[in-house]
């Protein structure tokens, strides 16, 4: 039984310059206490997905469903969503400095969550804030609770954000690039803390990141996004050990390997698609080395592949073909190129 089940989510924005089709048919699910990694490059729609679900994307046109604990978040009113946010679902953002209010004490900002949702008295809320700050590893929490965000270092601020997210013991934490603005050594601290808190509180986590390494480290399941669509979905091991989608494969191959020099890198050629128009084909087709005619007909749906259950890929290629065929299909490319003229 999934805690959050998102089906066919579509998000678009009307802008001065036209419509931005940010997310197209996104589906995923998170089990209670599990960690889902959503991975994608900039503009792939990974942040918009969760912000739209939580009603935090101003001006977004949203369709599809996102069932949390039996209730659909997409059809909820703003008031209903307000009661979910911070209570059942908390969010952590990329830049802890700009994400904390500069003019209020951190204790106040944490206590606010409890006061809003739990009708907890101020004094009690502050006492609990001190407790939380201690649990997320902030030394001398009884003193620091009275400090302002600018008096903390980057890593400590992110700890404050985590404490705030945990304040009402939510079922789900959505962490949107929580360590991107931090140094590697601090990132390691924060990821470790997030994992420990998840165990302590039994919270599920959606971790949004561009860093495959982070996902490999902490996620149970992974969704790879590209051009606003899910490309591949599987448990973390399957994604890294037997990636199916050519995009996932390309992504993994383009990372300079830690395990030593592998010679020349194999980049994915070309650039990501523009989201200013509806993409009526596989969004990866223009860059795909194994492109087929079928790729240009319609965006392929997610379908089961590989040996492990729950491994889904949105690719027209056959499960057993892929992974072996890394040589480009010259014929397919030529046809595709001709069609485009």
């Amino acid at each position, binding site marked *: 039984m999934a805690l959050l089940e998102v089906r066919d989510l579509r998000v678009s924005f009307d802008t*001065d310059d036209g419509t*931005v089709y940010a997310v197209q048919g996104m589906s995923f699910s998170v089990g209670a206490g599990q960690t889902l990694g959503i991975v994608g490059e*900039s503009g792939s729609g990974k942040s*918009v997905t969760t912000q739209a679900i939580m009603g935090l994307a101003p001006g*977004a046109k949203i369709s599809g469903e996102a069932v949390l604990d039996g209730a659909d978040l997409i059809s909820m009113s703003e008031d209903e969503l307000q009661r979910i946010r911070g209570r059942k679902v908390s969010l952590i953002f990329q830049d802890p400095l700009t994400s904390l209010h500069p003019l209020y004490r951190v204790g106040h900002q944490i206590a606010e969550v409890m006061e809003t949702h739990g009708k907890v008295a101020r004094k009690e809320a502050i006492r609990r804030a001190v407790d939380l700050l201690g649990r997320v590893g902030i030394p001398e929490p009884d003193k620091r609770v009275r400090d302002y965000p600018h008096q903390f270092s980057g890593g400590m601020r992110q700890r404050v954000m985590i404490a705030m997210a945990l304040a009402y013991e939510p079922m789900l934490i959505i962490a949107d690039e929580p360590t*991107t*603005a931090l140094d590697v050594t601090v990132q390691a601290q924060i990821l470790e803390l997030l994992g420990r808190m998840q165990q302590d509180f039994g919270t599920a986590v959606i971790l949004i990141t561009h860093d495959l390494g982070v996902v490999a480290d902490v996620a149970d399941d992974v969704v790879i996004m590209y051009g606003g669509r899910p490309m591949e979905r599987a448990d973390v091991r399957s994604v890294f050990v037997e990636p199916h989608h050519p995009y996932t494969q390309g992504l993994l191959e383009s990372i300079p390997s830690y395990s030593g020099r592998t010679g020349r890198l194999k980049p994915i*050629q*070309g650039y990501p698609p523009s989201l200013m128009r509806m993409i009526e084909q596989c969004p990866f087709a223009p860059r795909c080395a194994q492109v087929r005619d079928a790729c240009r007909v319609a965006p392929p749906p997610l379908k089961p592949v590989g040996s492990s259950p729950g491994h889904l890929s949105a690719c027209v290629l056959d499960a057993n073909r892929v992974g072996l065929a890394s040589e480009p299909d010259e014929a397919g490319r030529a046809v595709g190129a001709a069609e485009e003229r």
Partner: protein
Amino acid sequence: MSAMRADELEIVEEEDPELNEQQFESRTPWRLAWRRLKKDRVAMVSLGFIVLLILVSLFAPLLTALIGHGPNAQYTTKGLSLSGIPVGPGHNGFLLGTDDQGRDVLSRIIYGSRISLEVGIGATFLALFLGVVVGLFAGYYGGFLDSVLGRFMDILLSFPILLLAIAIVARFGPSLGLLIFVISLFSWPYIGRLVRGQVISLREREFVEAARALGASDLRIMFVEIAPNLIALAVIYATLLIPVNIVTEATLSFLGLGVQPPTASWGNMIAEAQTGDLFTVAWWFLVFPCVALVLTTLAFNLLGDGLRDALDPRYGRSHISAARKVRRAFRLRRTLPEPEPVEAKA
């Protein structure tokens, strides 16, 4: 090796066909701004009004000749009733009526527009020139020069501006040149401070560092790299400063310290109308100059507002668009910049 290159090239070329075909010729910053401005109907109407006003003031002698009434001619018989009351709008061929001395209000308004535009635009350009030059040098060089120039601007800004303008004009006698000089003297520090701030942030941008790494001289960096990035700001603030300066001129004229009668200026027309209670029965010679003044300043303000949105959305944000929010949401700040030395100084 060469095959690799050709391959990369090909990919880059076909990367976004839309970009190649449709958007290519129209995506220069100025074209983009113009396209946005064209969509703004209010701004376009204002622009039309301003163009018309400029034409009117350029061809003032021709227009008044067509009307048949000079701006200073007193039509004591035709223009005033027997009891000395000015003629109302539309009577005896006076489209907007006459004033207390029997002069044609319309002709005077037409000539008044010359003063307003001369002073408004003249003082603004002078202020712009001073402000940009001082701001550019202070911001670019920083250090001692910046302290001195910055302090100087601060002190000028803590002057009771209107009072000193009044004192200077009163002392040296009003003249158009002095008026332009005094008005720009007290308005350039605003632009100077703005430009300085902008230059300080531009100076730290990597493209300036890149120019320096190439061995470009300071002057080249200031005028080739930085100055083009100030144009949008300068255009916006010039448009917003013009109405302010027009009002300052009118105010000084109203206080009797600007353009001296009988030369018509909207300010002294209003002042003349206000002395004595004649305007209570002959409202037109008070109200029409006021309307001309208000419409002109309104047009410049509306245009400035539109320009601000069109040229650099960051300054105005009067139409905060979802597009910008989306772009924000999409943008990744993945870089870990080291603390800039200048920030450390601050």
